[in-house]
């Protein structure tokens, strides 16, 4: 059983803010969905599986990078060729 507190914690872990009014709905749907996922408990066997391909590699050859305009054109906050981001410290 997932509580509203758990959902808030998951929101922190996922770095997603949750509005007060959304908490109840999220908690209810998480419980229904996770309960449905419990069917996986009956699965046996190893996690491991994958495609057949291995060692897909490219040669160490330089390919032209994007032009400076293309690099920054989608960013709203830039400064002297840098992207601007919120402070981390």
């Amino acid at each position, binding site marked *: 059983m997932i509580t509203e507190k758990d*959902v808030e914690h*998951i*929101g922190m*872990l*996922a*770095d*997603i*803010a*949750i*509005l007060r009014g*959304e908490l109840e709905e*999220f908690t209810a*749907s*998480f419980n*229904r*969905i*996770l309960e*449905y*996922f419990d*069917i*996986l*408990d*009956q*699965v*046996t*066997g*190893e*996690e*491991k*599986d994958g*495609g057949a*391909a291995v060692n*897909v590699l*490219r040669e160490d050859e330089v390919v032209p990078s*994007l032009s400076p305009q*293309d*690099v920054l*054109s*989608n*960013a*709203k*906050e830039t400064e002297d060729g840098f*992207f*601007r*981001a*919120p*402070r*981390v410290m």
Partner: protein
Amino acid sequence: MAEGMLTFSPDDRYNAFLRTVSPARYGEGRLRGIPVAIKDNISTAGIETTCGSRILSGYVPPYDATVVSLLKKEGAAIVGKTNMDEFGMGSTTENSAFGPTKNPRDETRVPGGSSGGSAAAVAAGLVPLALGTDTGGSIRCPAAFCGIVGLKPTYGRVSRYGLVAYANSLEQIGPMAADVAHANLLMSVIAGHDPKDSTSLDAPYSHTPSMEIRGTRIGIPEEFFGEGVDPRVASVVWDAISLLERKGAEIITCRMPSMAYALAAYYVTCMSEASSNLARYDGVRYGPPADVRKPWHEAFQERRREGFGLEVRRRIMIGTFALSSGYYGKYYAKAQAARRNVREDFGRLFAEVDVIAGPTMPTVAFRFGEKSDPLAMYLSDILTVPANLAGVPAISVPCGKVEGLPVGLQIMGRWMEDERVIDVAYAYEQGANP
């Protein structure tokens, strides 16, 4: 190279397109001057690409997805970007941040999803060809609901380079068209090896559909006609299977026990991958910016709350939970084990049959708002997700109607046998519409 400009002004009363390009440039080639619609999660240089999400509004990719380059090389005119459930998360196209798309067959109903815009554009005759993407049925579901043809190719057969990732290990770009021949043509243009995609297979697709299916063994898993499948839909699909039998195919009923948990495995996998894939939308490099006056985590949490819709946030959070310490073993690891069982089920079946057939969707198109409960919406994907989990090709071809609404016949094939899947669909289509 001779070039031309195509004026494209569709009567888009269904909200199939998020944006159109007119006039659209085209060149020489097999698709010379043919208008092609592109689902909005496929990158188009110079054309806004939003994935139906506010968090990408205004984002104009500086590069073309490999499939878009291939289309241009064959002369196609890229005429617009089609509506979709935000980041592909949905089966109705109601989860688009830019409003739902209507089903051209019945405007009170959803077109299916998540490639609902592409399906509606083709079904309404606005374009003859469209690209969709299929993570757990997102091409086949809207193809079935809108009465068109949609192919999810073998995983790796079409390059994913430029496809905005939702669930990398499951999804494929594929063709959507009014008939099998056109889907086949589009497939032949977009398939092939791409060195920019490490999971790409070196298997070009060059095929002329054949309606000769005598001796083809068709497996019918009981589970595809089980609980939750509308008996009227089941009946229409059985009629279609009978037609194939009359054309010389051998019908073999079989079982697919892994269907019991395939859907759970699918949702755990796609949510986990999505929780990681969608972490890059921080507003630093593209998209609406985060508030640089706030501290990083606060700004980022706000950015994501405002930018993502409810269903996207739900899936990111459950995916985060499924990968988190202490729960990885219960969810993600188990889902991968389940996935192997699904693959093994297919392997076992394909030793005895050449293709597997059943309904594409358990029901006909829903009414708007009908699937408001997320789990109820997830359950409608039950018949399409096995092919994604196993990476095998699967097609949906229209096979009749229930109360005027289209029903899709789904045909799944062996890994790398997209051609055979096309042939069986073609044989049905030609047999039903002589």
